[in-house]
């Protein structure tokens, strides 16, 4: 097969012992990272780099997919047909984001089904925020504004991640996310300008989603052991606390436009550090939720499991059909 030929010929040209290949690979990798260029799938890369990426990208993909659920919960009850259409399109986009990211992870050598199996076996992590329930319509606003907002803050720098396929997936995702945050903001704005009951609903949702959204940036820097290495590899560009602080600054401005408040009376701009500061976050709760003991963990995984296991017969049918068709084609050819 052509693919094998192409791959083996140049390899012979550069043939050496495996140690020198390893050393060459490391040198090339270091040079690419130092130049702030991109690593591509077939490049040599350190085992730990690959592992870190696989973990991060697959977690990110799982988050997109599990993240569909809290919002899908309101598609059938959206209070206007326009909102129903917007919400459907948004949740559908999240499925797309999951797909782009699973593809990026697949380029590192793990297939989607393995990742899905790890997820539904409870062995893989995803963003803890999606284990909170979406209780009212206003949650569609708060999720779009705060959760997608935090996601954008996290993701824009990832467009420059050193791993090419990840960065490219993020470019596509970020383009779509900007609509997500705006539609969330608009939902809250409508509610805030609506009846007293609607405004109350909006404030209540912001109160519930604020802290979990801040925790989406991950543990504080001194409690985030992997961050340093990820930054050295140009996977991450900014620290958790740095991004969180920026996000708080943006929200402070925007919440005023909404005519709502953030449930945090300790937000202030630190003139010395030039950074936004916020009140303490409940990291015990964060770790509890991450460990599987959040309000919706088991419900979210069960839905994923049902869809995957319940859909197995469909995937099998399509695969069997494809095989039969290709046999038929071969018979014709023979």
């Amino acid at each position, binding site marked *: 097969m052509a693919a094998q030929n192409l791959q083996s010929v140049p390899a012979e040209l550069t043939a050496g012992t495996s140690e020198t290949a390893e050393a060459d690979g490391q040198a090339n990798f270091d040079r690419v990272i130092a130049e702030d260029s991109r690593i591509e799938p077939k490049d040599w890369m350190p085992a730990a780099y690959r592992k870190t990426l696989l973990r991060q990208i697959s977690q990110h993909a799982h988050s997109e*997919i599990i993240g*569909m*659920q809290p919002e*899908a919960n309101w*598609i*059938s*009850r*959206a*209070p*206007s*047909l*326009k*909102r*129903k*259409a917007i919400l*459907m*399109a948004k*949740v*559908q986009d999240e*499925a*797309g984001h*999951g*797909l782009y990211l*699973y593809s990026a992870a697949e380029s590192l050598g793990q297939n989607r089904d393995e990742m899905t199996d790890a997820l539904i076996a409870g062995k893989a992590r995803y963003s803890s925020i999606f284990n909170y329930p979406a209780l009212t*319509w206003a949650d569609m606003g708060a999720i779009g504004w705060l959760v997608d907002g935090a996601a954008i803050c996290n993701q*824009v720098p990832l*467009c*420059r991640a050193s791993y090419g396929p990840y*960065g*490219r997936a993020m*470019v*596509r995702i*970020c*383009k779509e996310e900007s609509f997500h945050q705006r539609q969330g903001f608009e*939902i809250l704005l*409508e*509610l805030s300008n*609506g*009846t007293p*009951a*609607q405004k109350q609903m909006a404030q209540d949702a912001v109160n519930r989603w604020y802290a979990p959204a801040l925790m989406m940036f991950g543990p504080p820097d001194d409690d985030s052991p992997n961050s340093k290495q990820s930054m050295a590899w140009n996977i991450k560009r900014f620290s958790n606390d740095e991004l969180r602080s920026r996000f708080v600054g943006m929200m402070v401005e925007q919440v005023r436009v909404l005519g709502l408040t953030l449930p945090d009376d300790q937000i202030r701009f630190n003139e010395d550090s030039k950074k936004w500061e916020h009140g303490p976050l409940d990291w015990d709760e964060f770790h509890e939720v991450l460990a599987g003991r959040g309000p919706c963990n088991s419900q979210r995984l069960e*839905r994923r499991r*049902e*869809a995957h296991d*319940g*859909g*197995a*017969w*469909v*995937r*099998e*049918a*399509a*695969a*069997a*059909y494809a095989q*039969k068709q290709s046999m038929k084609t071969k018979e014709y050819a023979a």
Partner: protein
Amino acid sequence: MSEANASATRITPGNALRPEDIALEVRTGLAKPTEDTAEYALRLGDDALILAQRLGHWISRAPELEEDIALGNIALDELGHARSFLSYAGGAMTNDDGSARSEDDLAYFRREHEFRSVQLFEQPNGDFAATIARQFVVSYYQFLLYSRLTESKDATLAAIAAKAVKEVDYHRDHAAQWVLRLAGGTEESRKRMIHGFRIMWPYVEELFRDDDLTGRLAEAGIAVAPSSLKEDFDRLTGEVLTEAGLEVPDVPAAPGGGRQGKHSEHLGYILAEMQVLAREHPGASW
């Protein structure tokens, strides 16, 4: 950010007819349906709305992520058609306070017996095969209907149909592809496909039933007589069924009655869920 340009493809909103455009035309008096035409638009709008509501349920539950997106697209298309038809229908109807009825007034503040969708659309999703069976019938029906409706003497109906027919053409392809795969896949999938058709088929006949309204409107060149679609429907669906090695299920037809507001037990639940929030806050805007 230079990387923003690294994405291979670009994004544009396109310039097709939107539900908002219809609503605007109705509000400004540019489009004004007769009572008959409005009732007809209501029928088609309700069909599409109930189907969109059903299909929306699949998002986050489909057999594979790619199919979440495919069914989501179809649901969004149907919802768009529903909004256009309902916006138009509302142009000949008034609320109690005298204002014209909007798409949302019609979707959220009518009772079960006021819905005009035929019963096939409200049938439960069941498993993926049942959904595909319903989708297969519905999309061929809508494709044939909208194809002919593009020639309606009512310019608004014709315009809505012109946009919708292209989308529905894709829906029927999607459904046919899956009918072939499920019927010709595994033993289990074939069994399920056959079962799906069996439970949906009793509601097929109702799609092609004429009544006074369609009689008057077809006569005037505004509507399509449902019965006139039957022959093409049988032929086109028959071709796919034959290729799939399936037969038209031999099951008795249900009496139907959706066009007169008689529904199966399912519609009440669909509406209860769809309308609950809007009704908790009457008069609110979202």
